[in-house]
């Protein structure tokens, strides 16, 4: 309010100068730097440790990756656009290296049917650092507004199939001997879903056939308009719409699926889900499902071993953060970050929330929100995190993290960015966190990975160049996808493990492994589904510090059907394949 003035004439004469201007668009205000331009430091740069060279080197151009994401016109600010689209690493032709599949969203975010100019892309990994785009994505063509990709051999024929989630009908593609993909959605039984997000293949009933857990987001209404806190038109958040409950599709073993969501108990809880990870959280040998929900409490569906699930997220301490608040769950992953033999959980969230690290405190005890102790809270609070992936960057035996970011509400534009209006208002840097041991993380300034501000969503990981460390692919809304090669200085050896069940002709999804070297051990589970909207390399990659790599090493595998076997590890810096039935049974 104004205050009255005592004098009859104006009391204060102000000298006012306007600097700059209110910019309605950003694309013409700050020219985008060339993709390989040197990094420009900004006052808003994250808290970072001193950089020692480039650990993640961008090889987007060098590899021939030319994909530029299409999200469609933005005048209406459709929520569908804000989710971004998926990325999948898969060896579709079984030639031993990970190929790359990238999804567009589409050109019509309100209806999700028109894909003109937005065809998904399948890049073949030539094994020499080059990617070659395959014509027509070999038939792996999305028909709706694309969201996520899940990979799994649903037919047990030795070739990975692909399930696409969409705003619109979901699609299942059968891999025909690595030569082409065939849309078998019509012949696959129930494939419901209106607005799905991440999806995960799992064998929840241990019958040897990969089932599908499909996250559902909300009942989206294209006509809905939303405004940000400053009353500007913006993308609607999930609470604007009614939430949906997730879908569980049971693989009947004949190439068809049955929707068993209700029978499994999933319909009891509706929430705006985004991320999913499957682990045996209660160590009973049956896969459980953790779902990161956006602005709703998370779900931890504990497998009751009878085809049903019970949500124990609250009692196990992962429904809410330590303050009892739900957060905007986006990406999620579950690994043993403190090497105590228990799977922890890490989730990405909105700005002003922390990305949250839940430390597993023991069977039956649940989890403790250890975000503060982990060092992952402070640097994340000013970012909106989406995709996240674990990787042992420098092979020291501790899993590090990458987190990709991009706002969901309009913010300020800060160069450097490389994207059109209005996405520049949502752009943020991506982050790397190095695990100093015991799940104590330190942010690391990365000249390439943290260089540009983009609206990043999906991040997928694979040993793309088969050199024994994990590389990273990032999907950005309405701009280029990027590929980063791991060039970290190595502090140990590596062991890549292919865990296959020859009876099923595929990766033993859900198999739990434990690598032991002397007194040290590491656990991993065979899985592709984690992070956000992505599918990842199913081969297990262990980093073993030099001091632990000298002694005898063995690998214990608990197969999804409960069989436990031990395999000798003949050495490091190599890939080994372990097959069910060929180890020493316990």
């Amino acid at each position, binding site marked *: *309010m*104004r*205050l*009255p*003035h*005592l*004098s*009859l*004439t*104006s*009391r*204060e*004469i*102000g*000298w*006012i*100068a*306007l*600097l*700059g*201007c*209110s*910019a*309605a668009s950003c694309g013409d*205000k700050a020219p985008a730097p060339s993709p390989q331009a040197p990094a420009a430091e900004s006052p808003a740069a994250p808290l970072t440790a001193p950089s020692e060279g480039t650990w993640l080197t961008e090889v987007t151009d060098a590899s021939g990756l030319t994909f530029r994401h299409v999200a469609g016109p933005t005048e209406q600010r459709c929520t569908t656009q804000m989710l971004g689209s998926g990325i999948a690493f898969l060896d579709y032709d079984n030639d031993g290296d990970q190929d790359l599949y990238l999804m567009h969203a589409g050109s019509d975010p309100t209806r999700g049917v028109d894909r003109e100019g937005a065809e998904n892309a399948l890049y073949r990994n030539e094994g020499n650092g080059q990617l070659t785009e395959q014509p027509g994505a070999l038939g792996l063509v999305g028909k709706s507004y694309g969201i996520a990709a899940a990979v799994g051999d649903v037919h047990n024929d030795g070739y990975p199939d692909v399930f696409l989630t969409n705003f619109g009908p979901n699609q299942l593609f059968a891999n025909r001997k690595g030569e082409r993909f065939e849309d078998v959605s019509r012949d696959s039984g129930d494939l419901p879903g209106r607005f799905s997000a991440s999806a995960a293949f799992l064998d929840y009933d241990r019958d040897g056939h990969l089932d599908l857990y499909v996250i559902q987001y909300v009942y989206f209404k294209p006509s809905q308009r939303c*405004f940000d*806190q*400053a*009353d*500007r*038109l913006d993308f609607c958040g999930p609470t604007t719409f009614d939430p949906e409950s997730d879908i569980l599709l049971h693989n009947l073993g004949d190439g068809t699926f049955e929707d068993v969501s209700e029978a499994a108990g999933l319909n009891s809880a509706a929430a705006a889900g985004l991320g999913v990870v499957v682990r045996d959280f209660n160590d009973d040998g049956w896969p459980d499902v953790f779902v990161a929900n956006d602005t709703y*409490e998370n779900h931890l569906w504990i497998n009751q071993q009878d085809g049903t699930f019970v949500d124990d997220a*609250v*009692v*196990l*301490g992962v*429904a*809410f953060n*330590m*303050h*009892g*608040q739900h957060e905007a769950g986006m990406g999620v992953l579950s690994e043993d970050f403190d090497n105590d033999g228990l799977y922890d959980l890490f989730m990405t969230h909105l700005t*002003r929330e922390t990305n949250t690290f839940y430390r597993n*405190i023991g069977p*039956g*005890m*649940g989890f*403790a*929100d*250890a*975000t*503060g*102790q982990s060092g992952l*809270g*402070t640097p994340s*609070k*000013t970012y909106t995190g989406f995709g996240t992936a674990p990787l042992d960057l420098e092979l020291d035996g501790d899993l590090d993290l990458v987190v990709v970011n991009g706002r969901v509400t309009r913010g*300020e*534009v800060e160069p450097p960015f490389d994207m059109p209006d209005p996405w520049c*208002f949502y752009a943020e840097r991506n982050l790397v966190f190095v695990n100093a041991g015991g799940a104590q993380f330190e942010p690391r300034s990365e000249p390439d990975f943290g260089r540009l501000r983009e609206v990043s969503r999906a991040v997928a990981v694979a040993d793309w160049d088969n050199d024994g460390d994990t590389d990273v692919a990032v999907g950005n809304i309405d701009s280029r996808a990027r590929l980063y090669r791991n060039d970290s200085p190595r502090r140990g050896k590596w062991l890549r493990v292919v865990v296959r069940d020859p009876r099923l002709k595929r990766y033993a999804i859900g198999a739990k492994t434990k690598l032991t070297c002397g007194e040290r051990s590491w656990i991993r589970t065979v899985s592709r589904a984690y992070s956000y909207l992505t599918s990842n390399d199913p081969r297990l990659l262990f980093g073993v510090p030099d001091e632990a790599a000298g002694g005898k090493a063995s690998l214990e595998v608990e197969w999804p059907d409960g069989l436990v076997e031990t395999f000798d590890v003949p050495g490091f810096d190599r890939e080994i394949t372990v097959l069910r039935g060929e180890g020493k049974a316990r």
Partner: protein
Amino acid sequence: MKRLLVLVGSCALVLGHGVSPWAQEESEAKAKKAPVEIPDVDTTGMKKESLDALRHAQDDVRANPARAGNWARLGALFDARQLFEEAERCYAEAARIAPKSFDYAYMRARVADIVGGEIDAVLALYATAEKLDPYYPPLHLHRGNCFGRYGRLDEARQAFSKALALKADYPAAELGLGQALLNLGEAEQALTHLLKAAAKAPEERAVNTALARAYMQTGKPELARKVAERTKAQSRGLDDQDRVRDEVLNQASSSHDAMHRAEHAMAEGRFADAIPDIQDYLRGRPGSTDVRYSLAYALYHTGQVDEALQECLRISEEDPDLLDAKVLIAQIYLNRPRKKSEEALRLLSEVLRKDGTNFVAMLMMANELSSLGQADQAVRIFERAYAEQELNAQSHHSWGVSLLQLERVEEASQHLRAATVLDPKFAMAHFNLGYSLGLQGRWDAAIRAYEEAAKVNPGLPTQLRIEELRKKQREEEEDA
């Protein structure tokens, strides 16, 4: 979008003449001061009412950037819209201007905490607020939450305990302490505090979530599941009972209508109409000294001088930086039948020490000094005032009279003439102009000035003066 910056730095407005060396120095000194940025955001597509509120608050800051309350109110507007970076800058400026204000220091710390600033910086801000008021329980609650977020659980426990020591019935602090203990592995102790919180807030999800975990970790899974069921219900969120933050944000809330009506009424001089709206706005916001000053001003102009004085004295005690309140007190002192000239001048000197460009204070002081016969000082202050802004007829008159006392007759004539131009019915100005012109031997002009004075006020002793002038005029002609 580029950030929009509005630079403010008040400087002397040069009106072509009469700029004193003092004013020039002042102007240069101000030019050297770093400009203060008024935060702005991209307002493209912003709703009109929000934009109006924002622009209004920015205008207030621009009009008086030395007023902490203006910055705080703008900060609250940003704060309420979750534009925390901008809010923090405003609160920081408010806290800089009024370093003894707990509210501003606390709001700055809270926003820095919400934004997720570096922990040591946030804790330092909380420490600053704590020095100003160590007995505010929510401060310790939020410090505890801050420590908890960063995994400093022992310190979190201490902070929550302190909050509880200050306010025993504080479920939010019981919850915080329970959560800290739970994360420290002291589940049994945690359970005790969480049960206390649950007794006060049985439906709160945060409480029940923590309680379920505590039951689980103390080997009571059945109780854990039972409590977990309660978390399915919607939660309002546990009240942190943060009165300070609520009040500051409320000031920037949508209830500006009453104040807008009041402002409009006051601008039109309808002070009596403004009073109920201001009182309505103030209901539940006793801490708003700015608005209380508006009320005092309206009371003063409706003849409720004692009430206005008492309110201004209280405001001045609570918010020493609200200089307008001191100026109004001085005005009341000077307008009383038994003038409290000395106290008024002390107040005005205080105002001018803090704000050397306060025009109203300068004028009041100069006029009073002039009436006390302290012409030399009065003239110096009139010069300073004139460097800031154009003067009204009364001030030109007083300035002219002071100059007459100093025998600076020609200058006096200029100001007395200015007074008559600005107010042709200002009889005393015409009269004194006549006197000053007479001293210069400008007989005709002096006679005309006396005649003008007589026209406006026939009661003035002009006739004798005119006759005297005519006599002198004749003598001069005869000598020639």
